[in-house]
């Protein structure tokens, strides 16, 4: 394999692995705020125990998120230096904003969230929880702004020649509100909420199945189930406005989503199936014209197909097609499960529904599948461009880096990430088996929080 393929694999692997953690932090952060608010309002010990238990879990997730996030930042420079030179002037503002408004906020107040129970008043602690939650959201904002600029560049001018050729920013707010940033931000953040919510649902369902810590599990579900339901119901809506943006700004990506090859025909909505870009055939269970109708309220309106794009400007169609539908499918399952759980929980019958509880335990994987597949379809759909229409991925690679060097770091990162993941699961498992314990009650709460 050449350096480009290896560097892409490395980026994909490290980004996918990193992205297990931030969405949990974002979603769990909101749940922590809700749980602690309930505790402050009622002074009920169950809420306190639930908050402290989830704070412990949050700390583990956060630590692994930071450790894996560092790699992401360095990697742009190591493997993609030409790209870094090209986008540096644009990304500068977003990175500066992320550093100053998000990183310091999140990591600083995390110390109080985790270690500060007995050092500050309950109100200050609650404020810190809110700050950590806001910090993780702010972080998402600036990363999505930068990433969306790669999808739909705006507010820039191209300056210079050769190695000095780069995009320069012309308007900060034009960068922040580039054509895809807000749609993609909302879709990503709501996806993260669902990730945190299903995480809480899964662990709580496990406790109900084992008939342990049922009070804390029930308290967590009281917050987690409505949150999961709201988030998963919002996702088709936010996803729809994202797709509408893709239709306008990245027609090749949209065509790949639905395996649509013929620009004279309306676009069908595929439920599942497969597509072959060589024969230009999509064999699938689909609703004819439905995508055209969803986008333009006209089921017979033709939509740009892949025939409008020469082969070298097309994304890897089959990948984009499959990942996109896996995302949508997982999202639908999430709605179904959240609705069932909400219904059973309201009638108080959830603890007896063993099958549903078991399904909820496993459901922790669903939002992760949706996140990973969604990102893959978004980023693979952008190919062959690293910055859409401006810079090809093959041009973004570092000039001085050879395939053996990338391979070395790829192997090393894979090994260390596997170790990290094994450790993460092991520790999570221990914390969950240990559960919310008496040790966490008010007087001795400083102990063993991590």
């Amino acid at each position, binding site marked *: 394999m050449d350096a480009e393929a290896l560097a892409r694999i490395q980026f994909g692997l490290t980004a996918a692995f990193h992205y297990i953690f931030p969405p949990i932090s974002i979603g769990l952060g909101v749940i922590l705020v809700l749980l602690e608010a309930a505790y402050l309002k009622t002074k009920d010990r169950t809420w306190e125990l639930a908050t402290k238990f989830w704070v412990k879990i949050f700390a583990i997730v956060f630590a692994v998120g930071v450790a894996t996030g560092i790699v992401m930042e360095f990697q742009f420079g*190591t493997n993609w*230096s030409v790209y870094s030179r090209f986008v540096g002037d644009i990304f500068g503002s977003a990175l500066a904003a992320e550093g100053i408004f998000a990183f310091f906020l999140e990591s600083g107040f995390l110390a109080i969230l985790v270690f500060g129970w007995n050092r500050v008043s309950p109100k200050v602690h609650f404020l810190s929880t809110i700050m950590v939650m806001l910090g993780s959201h702010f972080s998402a904002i600036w990363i999505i702004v930068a990433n969306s600029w790669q999808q739909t560049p705006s507010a820039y001018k191209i300056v210079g020649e050769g190695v000095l050729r780069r995009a*320069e*920013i012309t308007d900060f707010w034009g960068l922040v509100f580039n054509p895809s940033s807000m749609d993609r931000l909302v879709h990503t953040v709501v996806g993260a909420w669902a990730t945190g919510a299903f995480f809480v649902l899964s662990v709580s369902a496990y406790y109900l199945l084992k008939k342990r810590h049922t009070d804390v599990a029930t308290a967590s579900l009281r917050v987690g189930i409505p949150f999961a339901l709201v988030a998963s119901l919002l996702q088709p809506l936010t996803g729809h406005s994202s797709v509408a943006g893709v239709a306008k700004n990245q027609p090749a990506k949209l065509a790949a989503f639905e395996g649509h090859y013929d620009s004279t025909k309306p676009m069908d909505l595929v439920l599942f199936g497969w597509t072959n870009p060589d024969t230009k055939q999509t064999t699938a269970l689909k609703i004819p014209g439905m995508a055209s109708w969803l986008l333009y309220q006209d089921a017979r309106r033709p939509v740009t197909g892949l025939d409008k794009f020469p082969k070298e400007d097309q994304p890897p169609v089959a990948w984009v097609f499959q990942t996109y539908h896996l995302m949508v499918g997982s999202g639908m399952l999430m709605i179904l499960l959240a609705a069932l759980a909400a219904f059973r929980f309201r009638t108080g019958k959830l603890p007896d529904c063993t099958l549903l509880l078991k399904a909820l335990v496993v459901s922790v994987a669903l939002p992760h599948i949706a996140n990973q597949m969604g990102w893959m379809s978004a980023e693979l759909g952008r190919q062959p461009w690293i910055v859409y229409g401006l810079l090809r991925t093959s041009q973004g690679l570092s000039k001085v880096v050879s395939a053996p060097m990338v391979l070395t770091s790829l192997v*090393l990162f894979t090994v260390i990430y596997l170790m990290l993941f094994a450790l993460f699961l092991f520790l999570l498992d221990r914390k969950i088996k240990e559960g919310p314990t008496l040790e966490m009650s008010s007087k001795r709460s400083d102990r063993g929080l991590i």
Partner: protein
Amino acid sequence: MNYPFDLQTVWFLLVGVLLTGYAILDGFDLGIGTVYLLAKGDKNRRTLLNAIGPVWDGNEVWLITGGGALFAAFPHVYATVFSGFYLPFVLLLFGLIFRAIAIEFRSKLESPRWRNAWDVSFSVASVLIALLAGVALGNMIVGVPLNAEMEYTGTFFTLLNPYSLLVGVTTVALFTMHGSIYAVLKTEGELQEQARKWVFGSIIFFALCYVLTTMATLLFFPHMAEKFRTQPILLAVPMLNVLALFNIPREIYRRNETMAFLSSCVAVATLMALFGIGLYPNLVLSNPNPEYSLTIRNASSSDASLTIMLTIAILGMPFVLAYTSAIYWVFRGKVNTEALHY
């Protein structure tokens, strides 16, 4: 030579401030890592980890932000250095990840073998990070081979020249001293007595490295000292540096740990300032072919971009400084294993 306070210079200073902040803050917790294995017994080790427990994560954010600021303000430096110093940076990432894992995970199991393994990882990673950071700084002074395309043309071994290695060892020594003082500040009783010995040992070690590095710099890299001849007022920086260093043993002897630690912070900051003054206005010196050097002029982002970022920094930094100080205030005072975080 006059110093026009243009945008590029301001960003040179700001990136410098962020990296100095990182050196001061992560410096002491990396330093705790280098002396860590000298602390005997699980209780003492946990106490040391508890001393840095609430803050190390935040400290590392200074590196991430410093790296981000470098990318943002001087994208060509970021691109050239990170792709050119490929293997050292991969190693640095390793160090950082391993260290994070070790701190968070060591106390999760009772097994002495488990704990020992993580203790060693934590210590080795801390030394490695400090060493690599120092070697990188050393190479900035020596200069690295660049071509007209701003690309690094050397190899991994080009970076391992004797002078840069010396700067690397000096950095380890500096952080060891800095961390030992922090240990004295944050502990009591028998462990504190032990930490006082580390301070005196590491000061001697650092003093040796310091003299050697200074001599080598003046002999082989006189460009680093040039500005002090033309702008004698700048000599205040090395003088402050020496005063701060001499003040450390004095304050330790008088058991005034807070002042000792502050002196150590001043020492780290002034060393970084000396480095910055020597380097300015270059960022990556090209050696040979100095005409290919990356400077604050040819490697920076556009003025428009630098202005936006400066606005963001001016709006945000007061808050960051306010709440960061408040958080340190919350966690002031001695630590022990009463609150068993680790």
